[in-house]
């Protein structure tokens, strides 16, 4: 059973629908007790960092997640804000993040010498995965994923960067740290490319 964590932020319906489409058994829940029964977890999220963190705290989900991810090593996929919440902190908010990966979340900032790009970074863009990644297995090089975000993750350790995407400069569009994976794009909105990535998540 794949459990999609419902803390009141995000497109839970579309993730559940895509998982169903690829034949995976999935459930949406806001009950911390149900997290422990998960084989795999998805942490979605659309919205503001502080709001997300305070929702996770208030609902008791943060504690349950820590136990599942750090204690029991259950694989988790963070999507968009879900990815950013996994970092130590964000320039968007004052609350600390979950701090599972050695990374911070920063706002897009472009050098003054370059033409300023619009923020949020919204639309389709390519993700260039690191060589031999099982997460991107079967996804062609000329892929495209759907992005909507104003902040992006900066990893301390380059070896944890799973894919990079260029918007003004290269940023980490996915990271992988043991059982913890985050993607900045929305696989559930990214046609067969996103479907292949979620299929890899289900099958890995």
């Amino acid at each position, binding site marked *: 059973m794949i459990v999609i964590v419902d803390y009141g932020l995000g497109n839970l*319906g579309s993730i559940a629908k895509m998982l169903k489409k690829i034949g995976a058994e999935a459930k949406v829940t806001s009950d911390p007790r149900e997290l422990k029964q998960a084989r795999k977890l998805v942490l979605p999220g659309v919205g503001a960092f502080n709001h997300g963190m305070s929702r996770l705290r208030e609902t008791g989900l943060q504690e349950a997640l820590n136990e599942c991810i750090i204690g029991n090593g259950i694989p988790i996929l963070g999507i968009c804000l879900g990815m950013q919440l996994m970092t130590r902190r964000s320039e968007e908010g004052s609350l600390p993040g979950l701090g599972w990966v050695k990374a911070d979340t920063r706002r897009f900032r472009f050098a003054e010498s370059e033409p300023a790009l619009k923020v949020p970074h919204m639309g389709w863009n390519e993700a260039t995965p690191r060589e031999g990644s099982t997460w991107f297995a079967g996804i062609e090089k000329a892929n495209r994923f*759907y992005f909507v975000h*104003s902040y992006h993750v900066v990893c301390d350790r380059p070896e944890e960067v799973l894919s990079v995407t260029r918007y003004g400069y290269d940023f980490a569009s996915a990271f992988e740290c043991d059982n913890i994976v985050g993607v900045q794009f929305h696989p559930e909105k990214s046609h067969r490319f996103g479907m292949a990535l979620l299929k890899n998540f289900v099958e890995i």
Partner: protein
Amino acid sequence: MLKHRVIPCLLLHNGGLVKTRKFGNPKYVGDPINAIRIFNDKEVDELMVLDITASRERREPNYALIEQFAGECFMPLCYGGGIRTVDHASRLFALGMEKVCLQTAALESPKLITAISERVGSQSVLVSVDVKKNWFGKYELYSAASGKTLPQSWMKFVRQAVAAGAGEVVLNAVDRDGTMQGMDLELIREASAALPVPLIAMGGAGSLADIKAALDAGASAVGAGAFFVFHGPHRAVLITYPRYHELETLLGDK
């Protein structure tokens, strides 16, 4: 690099799909679920579905139908029509919509734009503005729900909407709607120069060259209806969408 978006725009009318001409004469073009399935298979960039009678009839969105759309759609989906409260919008997001599009409620007050964008972020809140030329060739703000032009300046309305939190503006040239005679480039130029947010230009696209011209005039994305559902001089219904590499070549993203 980020690619320009080319967005099919589907119009709902009594549960069926129609295409209008200059905002009138709705012609039935098929079943919406079937059309959405086809557009999904064609891997379109994004899809917009507008219920053109909801506001006119002061009706809420048809959630049961919209939920079925979301089940067929693995790309960003935007819905507009009859959204009057934050709760309406929240329900649509929960069903899997990526964006909502406001017009009638936004014309009455910008408050709803602010309330929704504070909840979900401005990138998910679109405001659509319909513009019609009067007898003297002057652009006027048009209300699709009432079918009348309004005394307010269209540019002022758009600026207020963006200031209130709209993350994108959908600009439709009423006189070009469904004509496939080319887009209103002058209008697009004027709007894109004045707006800090992405502009989705609509009305009149009849060819890839028209789409390219609108993007060159400053639009971030182009929406079209007739171009994707009609084929040939007799406007036979046939759902089409350019191949991805065609778009890439044409739009010069590669």
